[in-house]
């Protein structure tokens, strides 16, 4: 049975070669993947991070007209308060009114853990349906119900016949994987199983009438439109400004772009199958969904890195253009855009030359931004990927070719980041959101590796990134003052030991 037919999605550990602990260079990582040692690596010491549930919630919270039912004890979902702020910002950027994120928790008690929580979940779904009148109810299945054996998938199935809303199961227990990226699959699995992707006659369109003399012309028009429409897949880290930049470039090539799945509504989801190409903007985000759409609707897909920096944007855009016979136009567009952008970033470059940069965060971002910054004359002293899976292999092949000697690690661990900053003393740290306080306490200036509020992609985005780096390097007094007064929790021996001395290989 294919994954898509199963009620519960696999985690990435099951469907991909995957790693969360590694230290070496890009070539060694690829070698280690081939030999299999990469998958056996782990740590003797771990620090807390996120889980697939938290990332799944971030995506679900953006879907218009939805309510989230957490089937969980009271603590899971505590982050939704913060997530709501981000999703409201995202709505505002897209011209949608802010909306309170409605969510309820089944708040599993000791008695529920012993006696089962299915009835409580049923009542909670019914309440959410009645109270909030949503279009979609996301039912989030967490660690506890998965251990006590609640059949959440079955409750979801049953609720579909009684609820007015579409009921979507999101199965994302945190213990199933240390790799947060499984969340993309969990979220998409829920959508692809429970949300219709096909337009509905009379609701979304008036069917063509074969007896109409304009029938053939209208049909040709429709086919032409479909043949020039693409779906662009965003997810969590990709913000509005980046979507807009890519839309602008694709539009210049004559392509009509629609954006999924964040900030889309039930009505918009029905348009998914009416497009010529599904375009991912990150190798580790969307393969689960895009392979499904290929399997079900015969829609081709495009997964080829991330359009950050001049050469990557040119290559990425060119790849899409090739699917439409527009290679020449894309090359000319890139020439034109590069010229403008190069002019714009020129004033910032002298101050950035030779600056030593440590990059940490999502695997594709980190690798791609490293290459892009190196291209402009910054010195990359380390690339830290939060996780690695085989979808990211092309990124590391690229790194192995372009920056063969640069140290790469697979790590989302605060102590290893701390150690590298303390011992390598980078001029700049480009890092994942949530870690900048830690970096500042070590005295180093930093900029976000990504931010849903910022711009990174294409030409306009790259200009903003350069501008931001230049700005951050302009005054580092805050970090220096702060670092002089903050105590680190690590014992002294660690500073003279290898950063990655806690990585071990399991037999």
């Amino acid at each position, binding site marked *: 049975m294919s994954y898509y037919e199963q009620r519960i999605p696999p985690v990435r550990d099951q469907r991909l070669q995957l790693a969360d602990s590694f230290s070496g260079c890009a070539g060694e990582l690829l070698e280690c993947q081939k030999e299999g040692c990469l998958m056996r690596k782990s740590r003797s010491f771990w620090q807390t991070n996120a889980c697939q549930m938290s990332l799944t919630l971030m995506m679900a919270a953006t879907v218009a007209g939805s309510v989230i039912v957490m089937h969980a004890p*009271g*603590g899971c979902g505590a982050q939704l*308060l913060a997530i709501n702020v981000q999703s409201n910002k995202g709505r505002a950027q897209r011209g949608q009114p802010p909306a309170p994120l409605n969510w309820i928790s089944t708040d599993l008690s000791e008695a529920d853990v012993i006696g089962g929580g299915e009835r*409580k979940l049923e009542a909670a779904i019914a*309440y959410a349906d009645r109270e909030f009148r949503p279009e979609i109810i996301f039912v989030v299945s967490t660690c506890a119900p998965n251990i006590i054996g609640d059949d959440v998938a079955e409750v979801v199935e049953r609720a579909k016949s009684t609820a007015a809303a579409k009921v979507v199961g999101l199965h994302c227990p*945190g*213990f199933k994987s240390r790799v947060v990226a499984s969340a993309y699959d969990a979220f998409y699995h829920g959508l692809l199983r429970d949300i219709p992707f096909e337009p509905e006659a009379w609701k979304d369109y008036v069917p063509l009438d074969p007896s109409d003399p304009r029938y053939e012309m209208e049909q040709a028009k429709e086919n032409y439109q479909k043949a020039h429409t693409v779906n662009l897949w965003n997810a969590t880290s990709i913000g509005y400004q980046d979507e807009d930049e890519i839309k602008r470039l694709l539009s210049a090539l004559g392509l009509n772009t629609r954006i999924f799945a964040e900030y889309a509504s039930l009505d918009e989801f029905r348009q998914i199958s009416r497009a010529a190409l599904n375009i991912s903007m990150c190798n580790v985000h969307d393969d689960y969904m895009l392979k499904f759409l290929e399997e079900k609707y015969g829609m081709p897909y495009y997964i080829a890195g991330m359009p950050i920096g001049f050469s990557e944007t040119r290559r990425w855009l060119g790849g899409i253009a090739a699917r439409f016979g527009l290679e020449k136009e894309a090359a000319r567009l890139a020439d034109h855009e590069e010229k403008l952008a190069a002019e714009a970033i020129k004033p910032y470059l002298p101050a950035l030359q030779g600056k030593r940069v440590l990059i940490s965060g999502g695997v594709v971002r980190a690798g791609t931004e490293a290459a892009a910054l190196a291209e402009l004359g910054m010195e990359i002293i380390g690339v830290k990927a939060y996780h690695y899976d085989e979808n990211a292999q092309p990124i590391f092949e690229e790194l192995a070719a372009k920056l063969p000697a640069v140290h790469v690690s697979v790590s989302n661990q605060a102590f290893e980041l701390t150690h590298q900053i303390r011992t390598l003393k980078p001029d700049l740290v480009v890092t994942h959101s949530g870690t900048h306080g830690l970096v500042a306490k070590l005295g180093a200036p930093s900029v976000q590796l990504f931010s849903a509020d910022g711009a990174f992609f294409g030409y306009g985005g790259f200009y903003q990134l350069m501008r931001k780096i230049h700005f951050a390097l302009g005054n580092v007094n805050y970090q220096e003052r702060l670092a002089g007064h903050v105590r680190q929790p690590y014992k002294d021996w660690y500073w003279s030991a290898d950063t990655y001395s806690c990585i071990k290989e399991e037999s």
Partner: protein
Amino acid sequence: MTETPFHDKPRTSCALGGALAAISALPDVVPIIHAATGCGGNLMNSVAFGAGYLGSSYCSGASAPTSAVTETEIVFGGAERLREQIASTLKLIEGKLYLVATGCMTEMIGDDAGGAASEFAEAGEPVLAISTPSFKGDCYTGYEILLDGIFNRWLRKAGAADPRLINVFGVVPGYDPFFRGDLEEIERIGARLGLKVNTFFSPTQTFENITAAPEAALNVILSRTRCRGFAERFEEKHGVPWWATDLPVGPEATDAFIRELAAKLGIDGAERVVAAENEWYYRYFERTADSYADGELRFYSVTVTNSNYALPLNKYLYRELGWTPAEIFVTDRLEEARREDLLAGFAELPVKPRFVSGSQEIARSIDQGRPVYRGQRYFDALTPLYIVGSTLEKQMALRRGAKYLAVSFPAYDRAIVAGGYAGYRGGLRLYEDLIGSFMSAKG
């Protein structure tokens, strides 16, 4: 009001969440979270954000050690992984006490975290396990489990009793977003009475405040609903009596607090402190009268807070500012007996609290029988209205045209750093915040 078996946008987290928020404020205490990799991050993020951007400390947030159990441990048991994590934490992290705090998944599979911790404790390491699975209760429960672990299980009575030393408990880190400012004002007031005050969770405190706790003359519980069992067990083990009262907010409540505290300890000087503090307070407060009275800044008040803040806040609004309470919502889940304890405190206030947590239900309760003014000539609306609650009340306040301030968790439309509302200084601070929130519209 019927309670739903589930929670609409809970204003709490779980036992582990409460314990971790509290540990993050304890000097040199290091957590070891025995749970999946995300629990610590998710739970601490919630307070780092929802408590006025509290952020992280020494070894909290993304630095907190965890066993990060995966499916393998869920199937085969996680005790071995925990032992490895305790050992590696002791090796890498500087601390004076290491607290293993369990999550729901490791409790459900029956991992013996206590046993693992004991092995290290027997070898002389300062390691203790507390059982904080989410299903055991909310953040407040977690705070009490943590206190019980440190003070009633781990600590041994050291020196002789000190008649001038008191311990303060009941203010819950993070979920009482002003815990640091509030505790420091209690420390300041205590010092004026010639007392040494252990508050444990404010930045003035060191690990020695924890170890000195059994020598105190009195445990002051600044909560009518929390820490009852803890205080009783503390008395049993260390012989320290306890006194449950409210966090004093504003001069009248603080006057009473000082007098009663002095009486409990049999010390002099209360009247001197009360007089001096009131002199100070009113030299500031008198000058606000021109804008306050002239602006007719009297309001109907609706408060939405946890049980710790409900009474102190409403007493302040009613007695110090002369506002008219319209509704008082208490949002934490309480046993019947604790509700009774809390209700007793409201005897002198014209409105009794209702125990509701869901923001949907609270909005509905306020609207019920109180339609919003829509231009009618003779209409007794609930105006002018001031909603003092959490950020979850903001949209409702905007909808009703009410003034609004977040003082309770989650408060994420303001930054809270050293501020607090306790005592005299806090009383003025609360005035500044309440009135300042809408003064910012001028100009």
